């Protein structure tokens, strides 16, 4: 079983993840239409570039935009959640050991204590994000079961990873479930809203170019996000 989930299934999951994302990127860019979107995307590269970069940059900084400042609680939840989601799996010592073993290279690693801390933070943030969805009427009204499912898919590798690492219950069982849940997560990214992993950047760049080229970017210092 272990050989299967870390062998063919892992190849499949990573394959779908990367090819899926490349497909989404190509599909998105090919679908941009200067006439239908009413943005002269290619006519003013420097304005377009500046608009896109500004639009992404300010939104990647905690409290960097008026919207982030307006919802401080959500902003903290959001950044903690996403930083944990990205950093933990990529820089985890155990993951990089596998990488070194199989591919002969590895990335810098974080200590296991840090990883534990990040994992617990991710899980706590996921719980609060779900609570927020239930507590706030304006968010509750928007929330669907699909939204909750995606949070569960995203949080599952962290919970199972925690169990496996600390040998809570049956190690072999949790290890397999951990790997499987990670693979489900990877596969889900290109097919679901989790595609915002990539499309966040595309969509932000698009609106940034819209403002940078068409809606005032050539007559101002740039939109104050």
């Amino acid at each position, binding site marked *: 079983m272990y050989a299967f989930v870390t062998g063919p299934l892992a190849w499949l999951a990573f394959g779908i993840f990367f090819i899926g994302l490349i497909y989404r990127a190509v599909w998105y860019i090919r679908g941009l239409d200067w006439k239908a979107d009413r943005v002269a995307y290619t006519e003013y590269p420097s304005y377009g570039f500046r608009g896109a970069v500004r639009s992404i940059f300010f939104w990647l900084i905690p409290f960097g935009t*008026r919207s982030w400042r307006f919802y401080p609680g959500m902003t903290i939840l959001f950044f903690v959640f996403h930083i944990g989601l990205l950093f933990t799996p990529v820089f985890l010592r155990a993951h990089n050991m596998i990488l070194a073993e199989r591919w002969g290279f590895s990335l810098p690693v974080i200590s296991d204590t840090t990883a534990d801390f990040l994992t617990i933070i991710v899980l706590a943030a996921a719980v609060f994000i779900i609570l927020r969805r239930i507590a706030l009427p*304006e*968010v509750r009204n*928007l929330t669907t079961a699909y939204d909750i499912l995606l949070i569960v898919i995203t949080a599952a590798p962290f919970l199972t990873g925690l169990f496996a690492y600390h040998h809570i219950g049956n190690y072999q069982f949790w290890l397999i479930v951990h790997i499987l849940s990670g693979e489900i997560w990877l596969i889900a990214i290109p097919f679901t809203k989790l595609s*915002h992993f990539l499309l966040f950047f595309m*969509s932000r760049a698009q609106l940034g170019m819209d403002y940078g080229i068409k809606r005032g970017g050539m007559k101002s210092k740039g939109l104050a996000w």
Partner: protein
Amino acid sequence: MAEGILCNKSPINTKEELYALLNDKSGKQYYQQMKDLEVDGDALWATIQKSMKSRLKTWLEICAHCGMCADSCFLYLANDKDPKQVPSYKIQSTLGEIVKRKGQVDNEFMRHVMDVAWSQCTCCNRCGMYCPFGIDMGVMFSYLRGLCFTQGFVPWEMKIGSGMHRVFRAQMDVTSEDWVDTCEWMAEEYEDDWPGLTIPVDKEDADIIYTVNAREPKHYPEDLAEAAILFHLAGENWTVPSEGWEETSLAMFAGDWEGCKLQVESVYDAIIRLRPKRMVVTECGHAYRATVIEGPYWTGRKSGQPPVETLHYVEWVAEALRTGKIKIDPAKKIKEPVTYQDSCNYIRNAGLGDIAREIMSYIAEDFREMKPNREHNFCCGGGGGFNGIGCYREQRNKGLIVKRDQILETGAKLVISPCHNCWDAIRDLEEVFKIGIRWSFLKPLLIEMAIVPEHLKVQEEEEEA
């Protein structure tokens, strides 16, 4: 397909159709007929498949339902934070639903979509600035209005407005003759006070071509005279075209993209015919948005720019004051507290926030900013056609309270509003809430404050002495 005589899927292209619709007071029969208007689901789906590209599809798909757009919407705030007024909900439950059902929706649903598209969104685009993914629901609602238009589910006034542009190339029934007559009349009317004042029509190779909002010749001709006086004071070499003088676009509010194109082409044709160096657009927000920001795309101009460099009126004013073409008498500057209404269409959506502040620095001693301001300012409450739709008057009035409170907070009793829509909304909010404010375009204030050069003054006739 069941279609009414007045309410149907065809746009208005003749005077007869237009006047038949106008004569149906308040659209009584029109809305009655709308109840029986069949939805052509296949055509709707075909339109969506053809026109909905990756940007819109992605926006619909990746919305995380986080609710961060909620407080960005003045209608959400004005309606006691009703969850049904959250921008994401409004677009997902209308456009999102149509797409999910592949266009197979019924009459009742489409009438609901019309209500949401015209009475719960003014296309101010503020929500797009607050969404982490950059989902601009104003853009999506504008697209949705276009879909509604193809199916005939359009508020009565919007259908008339689009028809006006198609028939008269103006949002009101003002013909070229009416327009030229008004220009001549205004020049004559004000000539005694302003010797040498003219409104040159169809002058070729002028420095400036000036274009307006049809309401001005129709209802506020003095606005045209004021523009002429200010150009006269500044010594500008300017002209107005006899045709292609109308900048506004109710067709844009209606979602009639073909009508938009026809209207804008008339202006571009005038530019090409008269070869001016620059164009100046009157104090109107959506006119500038339509003809300068969106228009180039409707007409397929790859550059995304109109045929000549174009200034919104505030840009011309700032330039005239900056370069001293018009000088302000320091003693006549506005002394009382005064605030400025940032129009969504040329501040948020065209980047002129600094220009507005520059003008205020020249003319006001106690300028008070609204909070929030510039590109983050709230819609006046009447944008996107909201002011003009009778059956949504109650919802419009409710929406005004956000602007009312913003103005009250500044403590100013004078609101400068260089946008027809904002100007109307602020006038109406005073009428509804009686908060004791005055509102004004820039032109009349500038004429009051400007220093008139000796050679332009009325010369007293010496024989009288």
